[in-house]
Each structure stands twice: as C-alpha cells, then as structure tokens.
C-alpha cells in the first residue's frame, strides 16, 4: 500500500532530479567546479553516477519521512562527495537530537571529568 505511492514518488523524484542535472553549461567555458577537481573520470559518466546517487539519497530521505519537494531541494544543496557519504547510510549516521533527558547523563559525565581534571 505504502509501496505503490512510494514508488510513484520515487519515479517523480528521479525524473525531476534528472531534469535538474542537465542544466545547460556555458559553451566553451570550463566551469569552476571542473577547474577545482583533478579527477580524470569522464564527466558524463561521473554526472550520470552522481545523478543516480542523488536519486538514491532522495529516496532514502523520503523513507525517513521528508516530503518529496523538500527531499529534492535538500539533495540539490549537497556536493557529490556529500551525496556519496550519505548514500545507503542515512539510517546509521549520527543524527544530532539531544533533548532535556540527555542532560542527566551529561551532568554525570561532566562531574566525573571535571573532578579528575581539577
């Protein structure tokens, strides 16, 4: 049930991310992004792999409860390296989330460290 809607969203995302990734480059000019990378991989191949990983990460954001339009924009603001770092790991990477209860633990640690440090 979820999967039908989810798959539709994913297809929509794939289509829109592809549309975003083929923005016309300035003919004749070497872009700043190209100038600063020293990789020798063919740029079209790299662009395709990049777009696929972006779609993958956007899909994972959807699965985490982010809405589709927001997911697309969030992925768009990441670099290729950042996308690669997230791909497949959104479940396990640290997510900063402390609430008030964490402070009890914090105070204990703080006291212990401070006691021995002073």
């Amino acid at each position, binding site marked *: 049930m979820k999967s039908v809607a989810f798959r539709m969203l994913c297809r929509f995302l794939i289509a829109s991310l592809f549309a975003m990734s083929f923005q016309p480059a*300035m*003919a*004749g*000019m*070497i*872009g*700043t*992004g*190209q*100038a*600063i990378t*020293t990789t*020798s991989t063919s740029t079209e191949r790299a662009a395709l792999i990049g777009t696929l990983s972006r779609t993958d990460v956007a899909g994972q*954001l959807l*699965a*985490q*409860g*982010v*809405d589709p339009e*927001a997911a697309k*924009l*969030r992925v*768009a*603001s*990441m*670099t290729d390296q*950042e996308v690669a*770092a*997230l791909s497949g790991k*959104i*479940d396990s*990477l*640290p*997510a*900063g*989330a*402390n*609430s*008030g209860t*964490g*402070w009890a*633990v*914090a105070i204990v*640690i*703080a006291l212990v*460290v*401070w006691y*021995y*440090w002073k």
Partner: protein
Amino acid sequence: MTSSLKNARARAGVFRWALIVALPLASAGCALLIPQTESLRNGWPSDLGARVELDSVPFYPQKDFQCGPASLATAMSFGGVSVLPDDLVSKVYLPSRGGSLQVEMLAAPRRYGLVTWQLGPRFEDLLREVQDGTPVIAMQDYGLWPVPYWHYAVVVGFDQASGKVVLRSGEKRRLEMPFAVLEYTWKESAYWAMVAVPPDRVPVTATETGWLQAVVAMERVSGREAARKAYSAVLRRWPDSLNGAIGLANVDYAEGHLQAAEAVLRDALKLHPKSVVALNNLAQAVADQNRNDEALALIDEAVALGGPFSSAAEQTRAQIRKKIAAPH
C-alpha cells in the same frame, strides 16, 4: 547500629578501592581522555587570546529534538540571514531519526547564500574561529557507551583562565563548560565542527583548496551575487588564487560581463601563464567579443599545453575555428 556501621565500612572499602583503581587511571588517562585539552593546558598558542565571548550571537532554544535547526538558526542569524529554527526543520530534520545529519547541517545554509566550512578536528581551530568572531557549531555525544546521544551546540566564547567555553545549547542561552567536558563529549564525533559565514568572509582556519570547494558547493544553489562576493573574498585572502580568479571570471561571464571576465583572466594569467583553464576561458570570452583571431591564438596556446583540460580546449578551438570560417 552495627549493621549500619558495617555498611559504612563496606562503603568506605569500596570507595577506597575505587580511588586506588581510578586515580592512576585518571592521572595517566587524562592525556588519552582529553588529549587536546591537556596540550592546550601545557602550551596555549601565543597568538590566541585569553578570553573571548561573542555576546551578540542570538539564541533560539531548541524544541523537542531539534537541536540541529536551533543551532543552525543561531549561527546563520549571526551570519546575517534572518531565519528561525522552524524554517530550517524542513531543510535538515529527519522525522524518523528524530535528528539532523552532519551533511545536511553543512548543506542547508548554502541555500541562503552562506558558505559552510567543516573545521579541522582541532580544539585550537575551534578557538581561533571563535576569536575571529565566528560562532562554531560542534557535535557532541552525551551518551554512555554503547548508546550515543548526539547533540549540536554552538560555541560562542572561551576563557583560558577559568578553562571554560561558553555555549548556546539546548534550552540554555549561556552554558559554561570546562574545556575537558567539551572535549570529552566532542571527541566522539571525531571533533566534528562547522561554521556558516556570509560569502564575503573567509574563516580564519580555511585552506585555499578546501574553501574553494566550499564556495563552489554554495554556488550550485545560491545566486550569482553570493558567488561573486565569495570569489572576491577568496582573491582578497589569497591574491594569487588561480581558481578564485576563474570562479570570479565565470560569474562575470555568466552575467554577460565579458570585459570584466576578460580582465580578471588576464590578471590571473600574469601569475599563472600556463593555466589551460584560464587560457581556454579567456579565449572564449574574447571570441564572444568577436575578436576571433586573438581568441584563436589564445586557444592554440591552451591546446599546446596539454593536460587534463586539453580535450575541452580542443572543443573550444573547434568552435572558434567554425566561427571564423562562417562569420554571421
């Protein structure tokens, strides 16, 4: 009576044992537990002030688990963007995880035209940024093994004499914390810390190559105006920066300011005469001003130099030749 006395003795015994075990561990272990605090205690860098506090950094108390949006809003507001934590929830918060990922903390401010920089994993770097007037977002772990409890807080000050840092954290506007406690909790994130600065500033700990990558990352999603400011700032900080000049010229070119682009690239070529990218882009900018023969001479020079951009230069040459053969 006797039983309580026995208990007291037993407790004292346990306490003594705990001391016997813990004291040598603690004195020898400090360097392991909090190595950077120890080394700062042993030798405070001479160019680092003794006390700084950025009083004007605003404070947004976090709601629920949203320390990510709250910390970002704190740093970004200070960077001149008017934004509230609620505006950032849809940009960094992951509902199922109940938190925010580091990558997204770095990515989101770019959409507001701020450049983000992940600091080197050094306490000293964090203090230098604060001294330079930039609040630093640090990721801490308040958990107890094996359960991590990740938290973002914003470092806004430090005092060498009392050995404390000042944070905007959670629901506390001004939280003082000993260096040792910050380091102990911060170490778990591999000393992860970041700043988000307006494009006309360059963080004091930034490196040229790393910062250019950060600027290009912002340019992908920000407007050209922010990009122009950022590349100009790169050239103020590193006047010899080739890629800073290429970035600035590309912004000029994209906006149709061909002469401005040409001037920037000519300056860069004085310092870097063998840059294929600068020659190629200059040739294109010159060709677009219908000085085709001059452009052809430049692009011939670029092609002759070879290197990873030679195929791009060859394509440009083919276009210029076509233009010369069939003028419109």
